[in-house]
Structures are given as C-alpha cells and as structure tokens.
C-alpha cells in the first residue's frame, strides 16, 4: 500500500479528458515531469466521430496505463505525520512529548510550504480538577504547540489558539484511558 502513496502529480490528463465534449480515445498520459501539460486537444487524438444527439461518450482511461501514481492529500495520508492532527499530554502538563513534537513540526513545515493555510490549535484537558483551571491548562497546551510552530518559522497569522478546557472531551468516559485521550491539542486546518 505504501508504494501507491508517493506524491506524484499525474492527474492532469484526467482533467483534460473530463473537459472534452467530443468523443476521444484515451491518449497516453503526459510524462509526470512535464509541467507544460496539454490544455488543448492533443494532436494524438483520433478524429472525432459526429456526436449523436443526447449521447455523451466519455473516455474511460485505464488507470493501469498511467505511468504515475494517484495524488494523495498529504493531510489525509494515513502513513504520514501530517494525517495525525492530535497531540497528547501528561496530567497537569503542557509539555509536548517527542511524538507530539514530530507531529507539530511536520505541520509547521506544511504551513510554511502553504502560506495560505491556517490552523486553529485547540487545547483540551481531562475532567479532573477544576474547570477554570483546566481551561487555562488547555490554552497552555495549545500555546506550547503554537510556540513550537513559530520557532520552526510559521508566521503568527497562520495560527490561532483556542481552549475548550474539559468542555469538549474526545472520550466521554471517566477513567485513565478516556482522560489520556482528552488531554490533547487538536490541529484544525481551515
């Protein structure tokens, strides 16, 4: 499965075919590295047959013929760090652990690469102790992630911090497992 997931841009021919109103056969895809992808009907296309009114003939390219691989949204690539959008904390702590640090840094790199993206860092806590203190603790956690991102070069305007304290638990349970899931910062892309 992993081998499918390389980040190669190959979808341009599909876009071209989808945009055609007259019947065509599938053409060979442009090479992946070819940035001057065709915008008009390629010369390799066979002459169009007269269209039957009411009939729309669509191309059905065989994916297997493509030299490239399907584009995967890195934010949804389950094997990548960017698909992880929650980091977890110890009790009464806003210190980011190694796993959390790797996740935050991956998102920081992504935000630097995509300056039009913004992320809300949403801090949460478990239910133990007082609600107002947990609200403040949630903010400290979100701010710890914000500071790490800014340290990595993410401009402040791409980041927003909000705390929900213990008001929005990820797990409604009342034990250690639930609490561990609830002490978190969620990274929410806009």
């Amino acid at each position, binding site marked *: 499965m992993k081998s499918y997931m390389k980040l190669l841009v190959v979808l341009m021919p599909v876009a071209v075919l989808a945009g055609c109103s007259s019947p065509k056969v599938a053409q060979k895809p442009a090479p992946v590295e070819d940035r001057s992808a065709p915008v008009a009907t390629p010369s390799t296309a066979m002459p169009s047959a007269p269209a039957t009114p009411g009939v729309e003939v669509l191309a059905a390219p065989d994916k297997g013929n493509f030299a490239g691989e399907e584009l995967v949204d890195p934010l949804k690539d389950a094997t990548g760090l960017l698909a992880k959008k929650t980091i977890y904390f110890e009790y009464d702590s806003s210190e980011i652990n190694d796993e959390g640090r790797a996740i935050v840094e991956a998102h920081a790199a992504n935000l630097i690469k995509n300056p039009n993206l913004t992320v809300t860092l949403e801090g949460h806590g478990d239910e133990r102790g*007082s609600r107002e203190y947990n609200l403040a603790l949630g*903010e400290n956690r979100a701010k710890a992630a914000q500071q790490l991102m800014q340290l990595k070069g993410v401009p402040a305007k791409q980041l927003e911090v909000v*705390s929900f304290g213990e008001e929005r638990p990820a797990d409604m349970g009342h034990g250690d497992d639930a609490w561990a899931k609830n002490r978190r910062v969620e990274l929410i892309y806009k």
Partner: protein
Amino acid sequence: MLRKMMLIFLLAMALAHPARAALTIEITGGTEGAQPIAIVPFGWDGQDALPTDVAEVVAADLHRSGAFAPVPRTDLISQPHEGPQINFVDWRVLGVPNIVVGKVRPSGSGYMVQFQLFDVFKGVQLTGYSMASNAQELRRTAHQISDLIYEVLTGKPGAFATRIAYVAEVVTKGKSRYSLYVADADGYNPIPILHSAAPLMSPSWSPDGKRLAYVSFERRRSEIYIHDLATRKRDRVASSQGLNSAPAWSPDGQRLALVLSKDGNPEIYILNIKDNRLQRITDSPAIDTEPTWTPDGARLVFTSDRGGKPQIYQVNANGNGGKPQRLTFQGDYNAHGVVSPDGRSLVMVHGQGNRFRVAVQDLSSNDLRILTDTRLDESPSFAPNGAIIVYATEVNNRGVLAMVSLDGSVRQRLTQTEGDAREPAWGPRTHRIKP
C-alpha cells in the same frame, strides 16, 4: 418515613418541554442528632385544592437542613391550625420541643398564608406571620416560612428561599446541547435561561440576584457575558484575545473579577462594570485563574500553579496590594477556593491522586477536612448562610449536583432526569424577612 435516609422527591414538572430537564433530590446521609419538630398540615377552606402543600414543603426544607427531624404526619396526635387550638400538654408527652401550625385563606386573586411557631414546653409563640401569596408564589412563601423557623430555632439565617444556577448538558445523537438553568434551592422550578450548541461555563450571580455573569463559547471561544434574568438582555463584557473566563461578581455588585490571557498568559483582572475600566491584579508567568471575592470585598482568592502545582492564593483586590499570599499547603492539588460568608473557612477542590473532593480549611488554624466521599468533585459554592455547600460531582457516569453541610454531616444529591448537571452557583438571599 421522613426519617429514612433515602428519600426521593420526584419533581413533577408542569411543562412537558423536553428541554425542561427536572432535578430529583435525594438525601444521601446525615440526619442523626436532628431535633424533632411537629409541622401540622396547614388549614385551607377554599374551593379547589391548593397547588402546594405548604407544610410539606416546610417539612422537607427543615429535614434537608439536617438540623430537624419533622414528625411524620401519621404520628401527629392532632391537627391544630392556630395557637388556641394547640394542647401543649399532649405535645410535651411526645417530647417534641416545637410545633408549627398555619392556615391558608383565599384573598383576592391569591392567598393569605398564616403560620405560627411555638415552644411546646413553655407554651409560647416564638414567631408568627401572615403573608400574601398566590398560586405561583406559594412554594416560595413556604420556603420563606422555613427560613424564618430555621433562623428563630438555630440563630442562623436560612437559605431555603434562594435559587441555584447551573449548567446542564444533554447529548442527543452525539450532539451536545448546553443550557443554563436557574432552579429553586430544593431543585424545583428549573427554568432554562439559555440554550446553546456551544459550551457554557462558570455562572456567577450578581449580589442582587438579578443578573448572571457566565462564559459562553457561542463564538467558538470563551467570552464573558452578563445576562439580565428579567429582561433577558445579554451584554458581552469580555472578548479579548485569548481566554475570557471565570467571572466572579464583587460583593458590592460594581465589579467583576475575571481571567484574561490577552497579555500572554492567564491573569486575574477586575472589570468595573459601569465604565468598563480594567485593572490587572496578578502578574506571573504561571496560570492564575478562578478568582473569588472574600465576603468583605477586600481580597481575591484564586488558583495559581506559580509554585509548580495548583494551589490557592489570596491577593488584595485594590490592585496595589503587593505579593499574593499562599493559603493552601496540604497536597499537590488545591483549586477553586471560596471563602465562607463568615470569612472563617476556605472551601476548595482538594486532589489526592485521582480523587478530587471538596475540602474545607479553617483559616485561623489551617486545619483541612475533606467533606465528601465522591471522587470527581468540582465547583463548590456556599449557600448564602454558609451552612451548606453545593458542588458538582460524578455519580454512575452522570454529572450531578450535590450538597454537603460545612461540618460534612448532611448530604444530598440533585440529579437531572436527563444528561449532566454541573457548575452550580448558589444565588443570594434576596427577600429576607427578619424574624
């Protein structure tokens, strides 16, 4: 029957609106040593049945206080309704030191309610009033009678004719609905004043009982509102960058202590409500939050982790009072400190491992006593007479409200018929009649 430890009053709700989740009250402990009192059913010579059994409400109030054990109705030897009808000799034989008699008469579109409290052994009236009421107010009138009886017999004012604000959350098909309720102190008449799809937090009463300050996330972040209960007018009073949380009304009603993180981390501020002037009180890189006022309004008590773990501190409220002073030293988690109305005790959430319980610290000896036997307590709030503390806890995976007397002996629980109840704030006494 009233002597039984477990006593459940199911609260009948007049309105069947699904949002009107009722509260049930359950006495879970502590009626030993209570003083017997005879509360005779009140006389009524009107046409239709009364909407409220006044004597029953009074008996339930006095029973819940833990100080009194009302004689079961079936054990009452006679049913007098006014002084001259009482045969004190009979009641002396029963060993009941006090008797309450009364009657209700139709009066205009409402009622006149009369009651008298007697010392059985001396045969003298201790207090007695005639009070105008109506169908909607009859329960409140009964609570006022309870307050008067309680004050005459214990020397301390009652807190029965008061209200409690709290937050409720009901989850339907995975979606939460948050509501802010105001209910009578016995759990009756819960009235929703706000519903929201976003969390609501930290209700705080104005000292006149007319307004509530609270935190709402309706704009996807914590902001502070002041809500007028009669006019339903809402004002957003704090919406700065970062946290806007933990509002606490000053005893003089002019100011709100609150927490803002606009300058980088959570600090305590005082907002002058009239002119919106903001004064910063704390200055530390740590969390400073959940301020409450001492009863004299001179100081603020708050939670801070400036020492590494959350502990309770106090600071002068005038803004130039110097360094905050630490109040709690036992254990590594003490939060949500509230000073009792008499200024002598500090109630807090005291954490020990995974147990978080309401505890009280004597402010002169610094002795700490744990008052509860639950494990996830939060948000303690004093009744205006200081005798009872209402707090939130978790029982059988439900968020419930619970009450405990300051000596830990009397315990009650208020459970929503549906969903969770939390963050109780006991309102002020607004209609006090001096006995």
